[in-house]
């Protein structure tokens, strides 16, 4: 999982075009389960398609919209551009 070394940050801090590796899904059980089933689990790579309101992510080839609160509870390590 620790394939990249760097500062971890909330997913919400990522901007459009950024890529990152998820290190922690810190929300409630139900939401975390759903996120993981959708491919957003510890160790998964995501890219931010749109960060203007909430986050629009590309995860496993799918566009996933998540609210700001949820994006704040997910911790990631940004990947080099």
């Amino acid at each position: 999982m620790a394939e990249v070394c760097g500062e971890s940050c909330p997913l919400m801090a990522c901007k459009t075009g950024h890529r990152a590796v998820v290190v922690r899904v810190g929300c409630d059980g139900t939401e975390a389960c759903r996120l993981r089933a959708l491919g957003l689990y510890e160790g998964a790579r995501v890219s931010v398609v749109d960060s203007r309101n909430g986050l629009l992510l590309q995860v496993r080839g799918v566009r996933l919209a998540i609210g700001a609160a949820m994006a704040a509870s997910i911790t990631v390590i940004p990947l080099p551009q």
Partner: protein
Amino acid sequence: MTVGAAPDAARGTDTTSAPPAPSAPLRVALVGNPNTGKSTLFNVLTGLRQRVGNFAGVTVERVEGTYRDEAGRSVTVLDLPGTYSLDPHTPDEAIALDVLAGRSDSPVPDVLVIVADALHLERNLYLVSQLVELGLPTVVALNQVDAANKRGVQVDIVELIHELGVTVVPTVATKGEGIDRLRRAISRAHELPRPERRFDMPTVVRDALAPIEAALVAEGVSPHAAGLEALLHITAPAHDHGPAVHDAVASARTKLLDAGLNPESLEAELRYGWITGVVHRAVKDPDSRERTTSDRVDRVLLHKVWGMLIFLMLMGLVFQSVFSWAAPLQDAIESSLTWVGGQVGALIPEGDLRSLVVDGVIAGVGGVLVFLPQIAILFLFIGILEDSGYMARAAFIMDRYMRKVGLHGRSFIPLVSGYACAVPAIMASRTIERPRDRLATIMVVPLMSCSARLPVYTLLIGAFVPALQVAGIIDLQGLVLLSMYLLGTLAALAVAFVFRRTLLRGQTQPLILELPPYRIPSARALATTVAHRSSLFVRRAGTVILALSVVLWALATYPKSVAPAGMADEAAQELQLANSFLGRAGHVIEPVMRPLGFDWKISVSIVSSFAAREVFVSSMGTIYGVGGSEDGAGLPEKLKAERDPVTGAPVYTVVTALALMVFYVFALMCMSTVAVTVREAGGGATGWRWAGVQFGYMFVLAYAAAWLVRVAATAAGWGA
């Protein structure tokens, strides 16, 4: 990849062998992610009409269809709700797992058909990897292969069959391609070896899970399902199992943590680890990172300002169309009904039977059919928004605003659907996962002015609000109508806010939403949707409302009064009505409604409209004996001419009309809504309690608001 390839030949199936028991119908369950075209595939497969949507999780009802396979065997297809995984987060997903694990009323299906979207195969394979572990004869329908090909995504079918261990049939459901081959694969699925788990579990995981599996099997779960469920329970501990399972889960989690594994993410890591390999070997996706057309459109449609503006303009367009495009069609329906009433009336001799047919039956149903064009147009728009993929975007941009009153972005669809009818709208709220969020939505949906209130509004506005030009194309009548809709909408938001701070306290669930790629809606699917919705409305009008119209006609006609000789027709009719069963009931409740300015005739119509609000208009028609006769549109004139028998003052004034409309904005005069709330709010005593809360608060609001309108308008000197 082409649909014409021969994937099932790769499985070496024998065309001559027949299923074992051709007499018994083959039971098939259709499962898949939302947005895979599952509903369309179901329609094509069975020929049964069903709603098609693009918004995640629109399939909420249990729908079954039947076809005959090549051997003449009957095949029953059960369309399970769309789901991303078998972890039961929502009622829908729980249904899917319960059916497949044999825990529901439906028997375990003979064959499982998994619909997977070729364009998003990677994500779809998560559910596939869970489903194959159930060990049922399984066929994968790889749908939307045309869209994938267009994007340059190539799926190697033979390799995929090899990876999944089940038959894979490429399909294009919207064009009916690959359906015959899918049917053949379904009929032969039992001849193939049962599928099983496709990835190797690390020894430490297998050892940790073994006691859970054993405990589940001891509870009667099949060994196959137990393997899958053990993994599910590690991720999210289950509630509905015995202490043996609970203890096993707890100790397994400890073991995994000791081994340095994260029990929560274990299942996702294992499955996606396997999926990454499968996709690498079976899918050629040259430009997966390239920005697609959908993304470019989303740059605008999800913009804070432009996106909101476009959304509001779209909503405006929908409203304008519903009210203006429908008008000519409504006129046509109205005049043909008047004609039918006249023709039929002429065939029947004067008397009770003629009165029953013309005033009871034709008037009752006719008054409802008139609103069919509006319902059709509204559902056409909702269908276009859903099927094009825009509804999910609308939910996304609305989420921030809905959240302010404690609702979820997903509450938006039920609320907008509430403009058409609260019944499907409340059912649509099932896609909201958390019970409190869902209940808050259910509680306020009936405040959205539904299509059944429109007859009440238009009748009263047409009769009592002058068509004064206000500005440009906007006139006073339209403005009053708009304010009724706004009043209901604002009330819904305000009441939701109150509910989230009292009975339904708690945080609103964070938004997780898949945004499907934009696509051109299929005309066939839209036509199906509109026809389906319209026929539902007509059937309701044709049964409940027809029956009620006849009952009301009887209540208003009997017991017969003998008018004194020489009494004017109008007065005799009045006397008859006053002494009828209906009139007596109206007099009983009149004291309660009096403060609102409603006389016994209005009171009777309000009570009878509990069957459905549009009955108010047909009740008034029946009471005043106008519907269906040559002057079918004469009700407004009759109302204006009505005088109080004691004071001689007009009964219906602008004030009465406004008070009555405001009463209808708030009052839950709809037994279908009550019934569906009972069911969707948890059923049984809980369901009835919530339905009671809903009916009660809405009646109090309606009464108070109507009274306020009357007091304020009278003080302002209107309607004198």
